């Protein structure tokens, strides 16, 4: 294990799975395949197995299902001048349209990207990863998939921002007669959708991405030093 970043992806690499061992994904310790829990950190050990993708699909379905009411029900309701100057209940999409009418295109774009584009892109990305996981791939494809996975994993929690915005606005804008904002039921289902999607991404095992790489040549059990094992 030396700083061999320049050797990325060159040549086949011996994985714990191919060697009949199990790597702990929490602390990295390697154990014989029979071992159930890692003796160092106590993490449950599991081989990279396509059957584990069922968890991914299950959480993903839950995420997609809860995303539907998040778009149908109002995210928050606004009352100005005790309803005289209009009280409105806005779903996510209506909120964006409203912002465009007010001329604040930049915020409209941010909200649209954060609460519509990103969640849908996450659903698509996770489904794609789960479909191609474990299938044969070249090293470049595997790198792309890992990158997609890392982006999904990173961006997942940031969708929660919408829920926080609704909470802050409803707590803050309580000006009695002048204006008040109340959260709508969509806030809950949006929060659930984000949480389920995060769980889905977390239950995806990135080691599956690399399982389908062609096993061309002599397996290389060496660390950092090897460059081409052909």
């Amino acid at each position: 294990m030396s700083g061999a970043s320049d050797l990325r992806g060159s040549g086949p690499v011996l994985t714990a799975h191919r060697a009949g061992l199990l790597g702990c994904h929490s602390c990295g310790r390697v154990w014989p395949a029979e071992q159930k829990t890692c003796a160092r950190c106590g993490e449950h050990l599991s081989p990279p197995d396509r059957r584990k993708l069922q968890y991914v699909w299950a959480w993903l379905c839950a995420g997609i299902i809860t995303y539907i009411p998040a778009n149908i029900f109002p995210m928050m309701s606004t009352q100005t001048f005790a309803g005289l100057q209009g009280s409105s209940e806005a779903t996510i999409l209506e909120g964006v349209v409203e912002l465009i009418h007010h001329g604040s295109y930049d915020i409209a774009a941010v909200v649209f990207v954060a609460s519509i584009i990103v969640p849908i892109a996450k659903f698509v990305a996770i489904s794609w990863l789960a479909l191609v996981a474990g299938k044969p791939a070249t090293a470049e494809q595997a790198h792309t998939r890992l990158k997609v996975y890392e982006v999904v994993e990173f961006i997942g929690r940031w969708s929660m921002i919408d829920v926080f915005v609704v909470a802050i606005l409803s707590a803050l804008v309580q000006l009695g007669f002048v204006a008040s904002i109340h959260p709508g039921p969509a806030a809950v289902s949006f929060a659930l959708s984000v949480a389920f999607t995060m769980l889905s991404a977390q239950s995806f095992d990135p080691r599956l991405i690399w399982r389908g790489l062609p096993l061309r040549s002599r397996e290389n059990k060496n660390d950092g030093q090897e460059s081409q094992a052909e």
Partner: protein
Amino acid sequence: MDHEGTYDLRTGRGLIACPRCDALHVEKELTAGETARCVRCGTVLANPRSGAFVQLIALAFTSMVLMLGAVFFPFLEISRMGFGNATSLFGVALAFAEGILLPLVLAVLIMIVGLPVLRSFLLLYTLVPLAQGRPAHRHAATAFRISEHLRPWSMAEIFVIGTSVALVKVAGLASVHLGPAFWAFCALIFVNLASRGFMCQATIWDAIEDSGGKTDGRELVEAPKPETVRS
């Protein structure tokens, strides 16, 4: 006890597997400042920094103190046409305290206050004995593992960005006054970022077993030269 550089392909002794792609590497103790990356996918496996434990402890304390301030000081205040309203962090969570939104109160409180505090606490529990050179606490490994598992669910920094988005939305409606709790939260982002920079899981795992606590009998001992200072 294992000697550095020796490994056994049947039991996995002396090897580590990349958590992302499962590639096997021979375990080696790095000196501070070195970075080990996976040969295949480039994931950082270890990057020890010198004095990291003391820094992490200090940062965990800082984040606890800041969180205390963030919880009890006023958070935001707005006013328009003589009507005013102030809210604290609890006020923000309690905004959901109606009808079916109720569970969200708890979820929001846990994500923005509970988990950051819990993670700081777990980190202190793990690291304080190690920094003092004493054996690690009995449940240090479990505590550290849980702390790392909870990382994605601790959303204080996302909350801060959410606050700024909300402020932009409110700006046209009323004048906003930012309270000390808001600034405490902003400071918290930087504390978390710094803490992340010093965090090297591999080093902490090594330190837990080197400290002489309960181990799995696989801790590395340096092979040829006897006593060198460990980072």
